[in-house]
């Protein structure tokens, strides 16, 4: 092939090709990193929750005055909810899982760990009744759920509730393995930071997620401790799981009946649980969409650059191309010439782009404290740039190939 002629032609008109190569380089660096960040965020947002979100809803009650008798009201409410036809199970909770807020304490298998800096295992805490596991649709893999008669009634306030604590707890497998790495957590005693209490692990659930989180903080959202305590008032939050297809009907019914079931309160808010979980992830989704849009436009602009350069080259070389055809080059040779020329330009850009992409990747991974850019992203990126380059140049190249040999004779 006429590779030397090709290189020499490129070198004679180097400005345009250099500009396109620079664009390709930056585009590759942007594409690869943006795709990686977007992918990580979407992956973080779509990790399994372990919760039967589609068949659940929650109700938040607010009380109108400080004399509201929380301790008397909650059992009545729970009995009402659990007796509704179509309800699988209902519980009260201190904080909603898959909501913005969290409550947490340090836990340890050995009380001495709680005295040392950074000792103890951080765990998110959920208060609930013996029906917590059923209500959230969690999978019990060892032990049992709570005994209904050990559920601790509501204390005066949250501080008092934490201080009173409860003798039993159910933990997620992630929490169990962190506390007891040997895998013998069931039946063991756990020490609780801040309140000097202990509880026995009576059950282990497979998986539950408090909320979406970046991979590096994942342990904080899957190390969960469930305690049989009815949370203090005022008001309260109830979670209900229904049989499939019954949720909308029951939400309407509960909204109508629930506040009036007892005086002195109103329904502050109620929502289907999948809606709640989705709104918690809307920011992540939004940033992924923005990143994808940016990536799309950068690529589009670069395609314009490649097409523009090739079209220009074809126009200015019309006479030479005609001459080449006249002295024996076939259409295929002209086509090949442009494809190879473009391939050289994009490859040069891609090479530089790999360096830029890696540099940007290192910067981003320290900024967001995420793992380094995996190399297969670069491989995919370079492949994409090659394919797009060939497609972009195809139209002008075909026009070049169709130049009639007679052109060579015309303008003399």
């Amino acid at each position, binding site marked *: 092939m006429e590779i030397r002629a090709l290189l020499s032609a490129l070198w004679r008109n180097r400005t345009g090709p250099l500009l396109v190569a620079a664009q390709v380089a930056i585009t590759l660096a942007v594409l690869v990193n943006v795709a990686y960040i977007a992918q990580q965020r979407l992956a973080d947002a779509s990790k399994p929750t372990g919760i039967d979100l589609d068949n659940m809803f929650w109700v938040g009650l607010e009380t109108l005055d*400080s004399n509201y008798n929380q301790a008397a009201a909650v059992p009545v409410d729970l009995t009402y909810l659990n007796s509704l036809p179509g309800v699988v199970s209902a519980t009260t909770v201190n904080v909603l899982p898959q909501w913005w807020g969290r409550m947490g304490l340090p836990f340890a298998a050995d009380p001495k760990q709680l005295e040392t800096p950074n000792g103890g295992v951080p765990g998110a805490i959920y208060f609930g009744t013996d029906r917590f596991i059923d209500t959230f649709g969690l999978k019990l893999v060892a032990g049992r759920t709570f005994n209904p008669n050990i559920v601790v009634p509501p204390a005066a*306030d949250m501080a008092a509730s934490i201080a009173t604590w409860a003798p039993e707890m159910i933990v997620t497998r992630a929490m169990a393995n962190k506390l007891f790495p040997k895998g013998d957590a069931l039946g063991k005693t756990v020490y609780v930071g801040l309140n000097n209490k202990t509880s026995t692990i009576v059950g282990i659930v497979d998986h539950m997620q408090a909320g979406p989180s970046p991979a590096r903080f994942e342990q904080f959202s899957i190390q969960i401790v469930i305690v049989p305590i009815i949370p203090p008032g005022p008001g309260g939050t109830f979670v209900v799981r229904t049989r499939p297809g019954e949720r909308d009907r029951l939400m309407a019914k509960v909204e109508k009946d629930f506040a009036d079931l007892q005086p002195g309160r109103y329904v502050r808010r109620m929502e289907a649980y999948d809606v709640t979980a989705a709104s918690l992830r*809307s920011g992540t989704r939004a940033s992924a969409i923005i990143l994808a849009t940016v990536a799309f436009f950068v690529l589009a*602009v670069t395609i314009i650059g490649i097409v523009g350069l090739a079209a220009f080259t074809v126009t200015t070389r019309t006479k030479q191309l005609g001459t080449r055809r006249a002295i024996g080059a076939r259409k295929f040779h002209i086509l090949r010439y442009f494809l190879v020329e473009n391939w050289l330009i994009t490859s040069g850009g891609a090479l530089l782009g790999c360096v830029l992409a890696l540099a940007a990747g290192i910067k981003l991974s320290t900024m967001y404290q995420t793992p380094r850019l995996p190399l297969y992203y670069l491989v995919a990126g370079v492949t994409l740039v090659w394919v797009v380059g060939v497609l972009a140049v195809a139209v002008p190249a075909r026009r070049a190939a169709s130049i009639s040999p007679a052109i060579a004779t015309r303008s003399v």
Partner: protein
Amino acid sequence: MLVHDLKLAFRSLKRNPILSALMIGAIAVGIAASMIAVTLYHARAGHPIPWKANTLYAVTMDLRDDDPDLGFSEHPEYPPFQLAYPDAKAAYQSDIPIRSVMMYRSGRVVAPENRNVKPFGATVRVTTADFFQVFDVPFLHGNGWSRADDDSPAAVVVLSKFMNDKLFGGVNSVGREVTLTGKQFRVVGVIDTWMPQPKYYDLNASSGFDVPEDFFMPFGWMQALKLGPNGNVNCVSKRARIESFDAFITQDCVWLQYWAEFRNAADRDRYQVFIDNYVSDQKRHGRFPRALNNRIVNVQTWLDMWDVVGDDSRMFMVLGLVFLVVCVLNTLGLMLAKFLSAAPISGLRRALGASRVDIVRQHVVEVVVVGVLGGFAGLLLTLAGLAGLKVLLFSGMLIGSDNPDRAAMMQAMVHMDVPIIALGIALSLLTGLLAGLYPAWRIGRLAPATFLKTQ
């Protein structure tokens, strides 16, 4: 002459309509991307109270005995951003600051007198009296309360404008009563529209941006009504024990925001000594196990410390500028191609007596025209993009809220003000020139003979 150049420029643009459209489009997209990024960044990076840049300070003390965030914190060297009640109370004793505030956010239920209006939950800032003067809160009616009212505590509240509109239809409600979770309070003041962004005085909000509270009440109600905080509570000492609300407030758990205003820098330094002495004294009682790390910082340092701007804004900013660079390179290439393909015409003009300067000027004018058209299209694209982003990023914030301030805050996050529009215009001219100067210069340097030969 300029008119002639403009005419030539438009004729040249019309000669290759597709190429021209691509160039203008590329500049427009580049301008829009960078402008959107700048707007979002600008909204987060503003100083909420520039006239108190060097008199208003946040006060923090390092009460931790180990890293309370268990690895959550980006900057474990910073003290917690809130204070424990015993320490806030001690800081409040000093008369070095001209004004000080200790405060936190809580919530109450409002039962409107009008029985047709459903009860609703409202946010309450429980604060000492100086709040309104320290943060320069504008009053529509009435006033705040005195330090004596904090101690008694007096059953008085200040309303936000939104609450006054909602409860009293916007009339002067000073002297009227409101019922908050069964307890009556007398309205002493109504504040005017006031929405410092970022909400620097309490960063316990979604990434530092939130609307101010609905009610403000004297700090004494914290203990009198056992009003729990609804922001972050962090028990930073392993010795902290939580048994009841009354016990909780004596423990080493941080949950109060604390600000002080000084006459001058010397007073601030004296206050630093005062705080350090207090902490050293407490060390004798076994508290504050770490080395002295009490930071009294101005608003800008405060916002920087807690990174209110955020990594994402910075990344989008860089991304926007990189995008603009790609567009400049792209336009440069297209412009060069366009000019060179029209070189024979320039050759002809040169041969007919036009000077090199004439040729360069003619092309620079064309470049500027492309830049301005691209910039104009870019501004329109920016507006469209920001409108889309508003829906994408913030529509979730409006769910379950009838507070018009919230919508105003969303709007402020995507607001293009005059300096930003000016920046956009400057940026588009600069883009056009960066992309066009070299091609214009190249075309001016060509010897006319080269092109005449081939005609």
